[in-house]
């Protein structure tokens, strides 16, 4: 059999290893092994890649590899644990740059003839995405390591300017397709614009959101590799690249959910802050059980606030179970009992005792309120009046003056109830419209059971 065929089958093998490795990376118990498999796959692919026809000179390759390996290994070894995310950003940037260069290199075909339009198209994609990834990652690195201001940088007319950039890119791209020469002015335009767009895309995003950005750029670098693969007609690049591209998008999405944000919100929040400030009052934001899971999974301090609705739903047993699961997941869990929650004094105590919630986890209102800001997620289970901020703020409210559990001051609030109906005292509850409130509609027991099952899967 000829060597090309062997190389290609090796690619298949290494693609299998990548896939299997990625699968294992998704679970803590197997993650390290998964990384190993993936690395072995890479080794096989690299060796197979070296056998490709058309390679006439190994000197430069070896040079490049030695230099790259040295830098990569040193960086990986030296970096402090806290510096990992920055480093990943840098690595990602170099991956993007490599794709860009591969695409670029393709324009200088060995034969010297101009490449086909299709190839030119894929080359442009490789350059665009690779370039964006490169500069975007650099900016992300800068923001993370505080080398540049981590604040979201916005200026008037930014959207307009970005629109212009895109238009210009499109135009140059088309021109380059028509005459795919690396010496054409259009080529330089495409290159420059791509790099610029990467920068422009990341600067309006705040430093705290950088992990999401890096994850997204990671997905891009996969797509860039994929485009490069099309350009040079290499299927391992396509497979590995599209794997990374797709799984990167999913991962980005998961990360956004865990931050209780949408991707659009992350990418354009910078613009948003210029446009409309923070007052998005009056909007009810429902949340799905699945998204609730992502947020809870990432939370490290959770406080349940049960009310009459928990009793109606007879949800105490599942609530206890969710509490245990969260504790096992590393979160601190408490149950804040408001004195008038329920319909008789001690109603919540009766139910939680029945579910065998340890007395130590029950906290009184006066105890939880001073430290409510530390609570990542306050889960309001069928309570209403006892978490109604108008008792604190609105002197016209019939319940004005009653002390409440200030869940509105927690990082995120889940309110579990069946509808927007009011509670015992019939007063509307502004909590439901708060910026950091998510409504999980439905019977409390079902909702909690749903979240519990999400943890199982």
């Amino acid at each position: 059999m000829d060597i090309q065929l062997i190389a290609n089958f090796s690619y298949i093998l290494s693609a299998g290893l990548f896939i299997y490795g990625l699968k294992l990376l998704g679970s803590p118990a197997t993650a390290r092994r998964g990384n190993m498999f993936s690395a072995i796959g890479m080794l096989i692919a690299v060796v197979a890649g070296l056998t490709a026809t058309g390679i006439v000179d190994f000197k430069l390759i070896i040079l490049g590899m030695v230099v790259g390996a040295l830098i990569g290994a040193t960086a990986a070894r030296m970096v402090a644990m806290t510096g990992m995310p920055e480093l990943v950003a840098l690595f990602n940037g170099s991956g993007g740059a490599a794709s860009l260069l591969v695409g670029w290199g393709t324009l200088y075909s060995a034969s010297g003839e101009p490449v086909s339009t299709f190839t030119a198209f894929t080359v442009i994609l490789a350059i665009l995405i690779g370039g964006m990834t490169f500069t975007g990652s650099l900016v992300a690195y800068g923001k993370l390591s505080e080398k540049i201001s981590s604040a979201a940088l916005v200026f008037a007319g930014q959207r307009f300017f970005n629109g212009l950039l895109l238009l210009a890119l499109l135009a140059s791209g088309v021109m380059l397709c028509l005459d795919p020469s690396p010496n054409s002015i259009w080529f330089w335009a495409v290159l420059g614009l791509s790099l610029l767009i990467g920068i422009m895309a990341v600067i309006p995003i705040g430093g705290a959101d950088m992990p999401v950005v890096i994850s997204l750029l990671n997905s891009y670098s996969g797509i860039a590799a994929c485009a490069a693969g099309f350009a040079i007609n290499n299927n391992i690049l396509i497979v590995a690249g599209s794997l990374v591209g797709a799984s990167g998008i999913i991962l980005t999405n998961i990360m956004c959910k865990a931050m209780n944000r949408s991707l659009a919100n992350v990418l354009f929040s910078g613009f948003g802050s210029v446009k409309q400030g923070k007052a998005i009052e009056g909007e009810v934001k429902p949340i799905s059980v699945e998204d609730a899971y992502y947020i809870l999974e990432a939370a490290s301090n959770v406080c349940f606030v049960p009310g009459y609705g928990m009793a109606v739903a007879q949800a105490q047993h599942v609530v206890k179970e969710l509490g245990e699961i969260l504790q096992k997941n590393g979160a601190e869990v408490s149950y804040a009992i408001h004195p008038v929650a329920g319909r008789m004094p001690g109603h919540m105590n009766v139910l939680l005792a029945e579910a065998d919630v340890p007395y130590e986890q029950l906290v009184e209102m006066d105890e939880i309120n001073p430290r409510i800001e530390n609570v990542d997620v306050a889960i309001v289970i069928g309570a209403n009046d006892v978490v109604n901020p108008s008792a604190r703020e609105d002197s016209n409210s019939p319940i004005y003056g009653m002390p409440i559990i200030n869940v509105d001051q927690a990082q995120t609030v889940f309110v579990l109830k069946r509808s927007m109906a009011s509670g015992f005292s019939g007063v509307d509850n502004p909590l439901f419209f708060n910026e950091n409130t998510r409504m999980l509609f439905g019977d409390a027991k079902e909702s909690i059971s749903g979240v519990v099952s999400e943890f199982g899967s």
Partner: protein
Amino acid sequence: MLIAVPSETHANEKRVALIPDSVKKLTKAGFDVHVQSGLGIRSGFTDEDYTAANASISTDRTALLGSGDIVLRVQKPTIEEVNQLKKGAIHVSYLDPYNENTLVDAMAERQISAISMEMIPRTTRAQKMDALSSQANLAGYVMVLLAVAKLDRILPMMMTPAGTLSPARVFVIGAGVAGLQAIATAKRLGARVEAFDTRPVVAEQVHSLGAKFVDIDLGEMSQTKDGYAVELTPEQLELQRLGMKDVISQSDIVITTAQLFGRPAPRIVTKDMVDVMQRGGVIVDMAVDSGGNVEGSVVDQTVDINGVSIIGVSNLPSEVSKHASQMYSANLFNLVSEFWDSKAKVFNLNLEDDILAGCVITHDGAIVNQTIKDLRN
């Protein structure tokens, strides 16, 4: 400002109006608290405990009564005691203003600002001062335990080598605060619990404690704006009796908590219902004091009718006097501190406030409470 707390004189009353803990908080807030010697002895608090909480101990009851700007107690005063009070003093206690006309008049005459603990509105905001709730809650618990102590069988189900003991059946009539706590307590002990109330909204609350609500169709039903039950028509009462007889005949324990605020309690369990109950059954009548829900119940006695015991304890919270005192005392403290202007050091007896409008009966020599005024006319 001086707060005076005289001892309770009722034989059955073991509770106290203020426990040392609340005394400490009040003195910290700037009050002088004088308590009668031996005040807390029946709830487990000694004079030393009070002294340690910065109260002054007084042995002269009359002087004490006369000295207080605010007088706090559990039970209503006698007419003589009213006349010993300082003029213009604030007097907080149970008062039964619907029935105690002469007492109320006497207080008005003496220019006492009389606050009736029964009349604290049942609103969410006022709940921390609501002694009816806090005491009814304990009463619910006590009733179950009284019944259980009397019963000749155990409550929970047990499958044992010596056969299966079936769970006892408990039937709670009237699921207000006390009824709900009775349900919860009986459930805890493993009984099968059923409950009935004329207010249909209560069904959900009963289910929320894991008990069964007995559905008896009485036609149109409603509740007053404060959430109290309205009186039933004679036909409705009859329907209710028929429906309940069935349940009662299968119950080991029946607990009745149906009270109509300010009026005699409805007669719910009649002689014929008692008769269908099996031997050894126990009935607890919470309303025994206001006429009794159960035919044949006698205040502070346990009557045996054909092997069925009817328990009629009038002062149920007193059975757990320590906690009952703690809660009552907290209610009083919350009431006083809510209206205490700590800067001006005055008690802000603002009759515009909906809580005070509800519970202040007499003030400045007149009856100021709208409900009582309406009643008199």
